[in-house]
């Protein structure tokens, strides 16, 4: 007993940081996801020329809290003859897989819960693929035909696009040479170029496949309201449904983070290796915050209520504080170089990279998620057979041919000693040829079977 307690104490002393981070993520992420939902509703409203939730709290900012309270106090209905064990387990599996995948991500050079996993990116992809079980078992446990059909469709879609997404990731990994998340971003810093620019077709494939992976529009037939009520989530009410919801948005964040790490340079700023005049890009984050703060200040007098005016002032103050935090390390080193002691500059440098890295990473993930939301409110839904056709007949051949041709491009690059931006000379033609070949395959297939006007009757 003594040995067990001593071993536990040693374990906690050695691994206290990941444990605390893990608990913090599980505690805070539902709140973050709630606010992502609010942002989505506001963006939806903006694109539809209206205002969105405005009633609960200033500008609707307490809406997620109201939603959470509503979901928690709803009655928990279990369908008749539903399998209770599996009914309980399914949302837990979904959420567990999504939250576990967050552990493998790296937000900055030092912000990583599970540091130094050898198989970093593969861990995130593999664990988030376990969420498929949450969907399939949820649909089955509901003991309802529509739920089962929705679950089977959704999991078929997920499995189909997982292959394409994996191959697209392999393209990016060809440049990185390692699966370790930190090393991938370091490789992008060494090459001086984001891998999304080096392999644009791979990035495009991963973008489309990740939209399908998270069941977002235009690939959201399995959970479309006009089709199957809510697909596999139909019979889950209250807290169980909020777990599924949490899992879906967490998956969105995970998928955006994987794309950012591998294709968009992770926590690096644009042009990470060149210095000199390009270092002015480092002033963009504080400048952005200052602009937002000034905008809030300008809008303050136009607010109708006193509470809202106060709120705008608070937001402006927060933006300026954030701008100060972002600007301080930047100003400390280059500009005030002669005036600052070297020891202070050396002490500030790691924070410089960490804070700016965090900002750039969150900025890129937000841009990716904004793009998801933009597509949701713009494009109509794909029919299920069209969806499967796109996945199997276009994206998978495209991604496989892309891997082959990017491999050839890399060999050419090694032969001619191209690296960094010069590698674009080899990979851009490869990507274009891959795209042309895949479109050619699609055209050949369309010519051989004329498209039926109505949906075929056996695509369950």
């Amino acid at each position, binding site marked *: 007993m003594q040995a067990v307690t001593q071993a536990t104490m040693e374990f906690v002393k050695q691994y206290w940081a990941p444990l605390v981070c893990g608990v913090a993520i599980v505690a805070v992420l539902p709140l973050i996801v709630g606010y992502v939902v609010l942002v989505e509703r506001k963006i939806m409203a903006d694109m539809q020329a209206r205002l969105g939730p405005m009633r609960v709290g200033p500008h609707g900012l307490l809406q997620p809290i109201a939603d959470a309270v509503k979901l928690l106090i709803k009655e928990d209905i279990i369908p008749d003859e539903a*399998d209770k064990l599996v009914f309980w387990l399914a949302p837990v599996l979904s959420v567990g897989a999504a939250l576990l995948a967050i552990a493998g991500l790296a937000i900055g050079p030092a912000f990583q819960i599970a540091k130094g996993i*050898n*198989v970093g990116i593969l*861990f995130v992809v*593999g664990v988030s693929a376990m969420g498929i*079980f949450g969907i*399939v078992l949820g649909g*089955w446990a509901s003991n309802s035909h529509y739920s089962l059909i929705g679950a089977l469709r959704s999991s078929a879609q997920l499995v189909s696009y997982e292959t394409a997404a994996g191959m697209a990731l392999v393209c990016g990994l060809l440049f990185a040479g390692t699966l370790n998340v930190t090393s991938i971003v370091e490789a992008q810093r060494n090459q001086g170029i984001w891998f999304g620019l080096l392999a644009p077709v791979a990035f495009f494939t991963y973008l489309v496949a990740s939209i399908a992976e998270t069941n977002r529009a235009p690939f959201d037939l399995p959970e479309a309201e006009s089709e199957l009520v809510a697909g596999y989530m139909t019979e889950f009410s209250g807290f169980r449904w909020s777990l599924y919801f949490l899992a879906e948005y967490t998956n969105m964040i995970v998928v955006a983070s994987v794309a950012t790490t591998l294709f968009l340079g992770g926590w690096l700023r644009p042009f990470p290796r060149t210095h000199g005049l390009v270092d002015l890009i480092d002033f963009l984050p504080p400048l952005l915050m200052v602009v937002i703060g000034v905008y809030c200040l300008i809008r303050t007098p136009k607010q109708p209520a006193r509470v809202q005016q106060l709120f705008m002032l608070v937001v402006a103050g927060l933006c300026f504080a954030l701008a100060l935090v972002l600007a301080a390390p930047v100003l400390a080193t280059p500009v005030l170089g002669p005036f600052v002691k070297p020891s202070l500059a050396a002490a500030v440098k790691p924070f410089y990279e960490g804070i700016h890295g965090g900002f750039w990473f969150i900025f890129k993930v937000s841009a990716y998620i904004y793009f998801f939301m933009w597509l949701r409110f713009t494009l109509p839904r794909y029919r299920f057979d069209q969806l499967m056709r796109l996945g199997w007949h276009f994206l998978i051949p495209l991604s496989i041919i892309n891997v082959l041709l990017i491999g050839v491009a890399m060999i050419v690059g090694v032969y001619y000693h191209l690296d960094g931006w010069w590698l674009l000379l080899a990979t851009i033609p490869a990507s274009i040829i891959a795209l042309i070949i895949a479109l050619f395959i699609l055209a050949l297939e369309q010519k051989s079977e004329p498209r039926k006007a109505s949906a075929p009757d*056996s695509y369950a």
Partner: protein
Amino acid sequence: MLDQAIFYLFAGIAVVSAILTVTRRNAVHSAIFLITALLATAGIFLQLRAEFLFIVQIILYVGGIMVLFVFVIMLVNLDVAVRQMQFARQKWVALLISLALAAQVGLMLWSSRKVPGHGVPVLNAVPADKLPPNTEAVAQSLFSSYLLPFEIASVLLLVAMIGAVVMAKKRT
């Protein structure tokens, strides 16, 4: 100490899940317990510092093969089957023979427990922090010494894919 705790945890989960897999009446429950058994096996791989195999087990076995199993169970789900006998008529004889096999191997392992390594030549395992990076080592081995089995495995997977599609297609 941590190593031991992790091993006993995952081994316990694996054995209990395996027993539950072969004894559940409902095939979906069996599948769920097989998933936990496979995850526990992946944990054992991780404890043995085989990180690439850990993640391949999760992606392929749990994320691929078990999804296939669950799909097929749902397709052939018969309510009648759940109420019938779950165990074959030969169950007692089969159990006896399996336990005899278990007793043989178990006796062999148990009687050699004092011999270091149970008679197998034992080298001192490399301490964990001096191991080469696992993915790179497996990749190196796979693409140099074992390239032919790798290519044969890919042909095998292609053949299996074609075979499965042909067999599961409806005869229209």
